[in-house]
């Protein structure tokens, strides 16, 4: 399947990654090449094969319903680019 600029721009938008206009074209080429390469999988017959969910059949006990974490606001906020009165500060979200 061929990849065009519009698709790459849409995917970059979904991934929230700014791609400068002049980098778009080379990126289309790189991604197209990688995708063409992985598309060789289409040749493999996977009829009746269940997709892998977890590599080893592990079963685990669930966590008990106990409060044993949190109450560490300083640690949570310590790396924040901006904070105020115990909140994270982020650019305005349009509602």
């Amino acid at each position, binding site marked *: 399947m061929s990849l065009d600029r519009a698709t790459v721009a849409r995917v970059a938008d*979904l991934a*929230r990654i700014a791609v400068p206009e002049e980098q778009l074209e080379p990126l289309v080429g790189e991604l197209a090449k990688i995708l063409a390469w992985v598309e060789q999988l289409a040749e493999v017959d996977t009829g009746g094969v269940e997709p892998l*969910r*977890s590599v080893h059949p*592990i*079963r*685990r*006990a*669930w*966590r*008990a*319903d*106990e*409060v*044993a*974490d*949190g*109450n*560490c*606001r300083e*640690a*949570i*906020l310590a790396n924040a680019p*901006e904070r*105020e*009165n*115990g*909140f*994270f*500060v*982020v*650019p*305005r*979200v*349009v*509602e």
Partner: protein
Amino acid sequence: MGWTIRGRTGEWELVCGLEVHAQVISKAKLFSAAATAFGAEPNTQVSPVDAGMPGMLPVLNGFCVEQAVKTGLALEAEINRVSIFERKNYFYPDLPQGYQISQYQKPIVGRGWILIDLPDGGTRAIGITRLHLEQDAGKSLHGAREGVTLIDLNRCGVALMEIVSEPDIRAPEEAVLYLKKLRSILRYIGTCDGNMEEGSLRCDANVSVRRVGDPNFGTRCEIKNVNSMRFVAKAIEYEAKRQVDILESGGVVEQETRLFDATKGETRSMRGKEEAHDYRYFPDPDLLPLELDEALIERLRAELPELPDAKKARFVRQYGLSAYDAGVLVAERAAADYFEKVAAGRDGKLAANWVINELFGALSRRGLEIDACPLPAEALGELLDLLAEGTISGKIAKDVFQKAFETGRGPREIVEAEGLRQVVDAGAIEPVVARLVAENPQQVENAKKNPKVVGWFVGQVMKATGGKANPGLVNDLVRKALGLE
């Protein structure tokens, strides 16, 4: 319920399904060990897992799983032995991981149903499509300062059950009944407190309309934010009428998400505010498939209490109540329990009347829930006993009820202390009757022509005795004195 919209060109039918987000009652979050309590200081109930910090991993809280299974069982739904947690990917500042862990292709609970109780005492089944477990997001605070939003992650990661109904709802009021019944069930089994003000129960409605008799569905709109019982019917009705207006004027309903504005009582488009989503769901590789074994399911089934429908049927059978009264009594488990304590060893119908009319009335006047009822069930039972014994009259009983409700004193104690015992001694009443007959010759004449005037004499006697006289006895004595026997 036979609800239709009469448009200019004909009758239209509503087709509506609800998506309810019910916050699971648990101490800790779905995938982290931080607390879930409401109303804490911002970001104090946040673990590094909830904050989406590097290298942090989710670990499933088994109690939340049990709560979801219990809910599924109570909705008589299929419990899926294997379900999968998937990631729903999108960017939002209140979503620290950049994805919400939810269930998509394989939810923990499949098809089930809810019986809604109609006002005429009948019921109607509304199908449940699915119930799945997912994480809640954090909270965004706008407007604290120009150009910024403040983020509190306390709610982030709290377990939610998303309960999706079939598009079976045909009247706005049915949506309310559905929500009430769902909330009643959730509260019975203790999996969600149902508190809509605190956001533990949130509702979105999918609304479409079609001409009566048309088997096909119309284009639907999703109405967000119908977060109170009061607004659910309003929002659905407004939206259905809006769609009918569009269709009748030759327009096309666009599939979109709309927001209900409670102050204006209308829905408005969120278009432009919300771009096209591509959530890129895929199984969360940090979590194992969620497997349930039969023993667990059976244990949870055994732990289920008697549910509202079963209780209602039993109340009708055991106490001879009407379906309507039984339905009112079982809506809240605490109320049903209260009623059963009052009814134990007494007349069930009488108990039901007192609980529904007097008690519920008094509670609602004071704005109280049944859990905070100042009058213990034993006290109301005592009052009914006083009534049954003939110690007090029905009228006095109502006064005693008010006093007991307001002061918390026992009914018997009130009756004794205030000398409210019914007078059943004819000797004490006869002089009063005689005096009244003597003083009102004209009324005596009237009574002979019009038997209704007897009631006037009875009323006067009751008044004169402070309501304590036994009304039946007074009636007999008045008739005798008037020579009507």
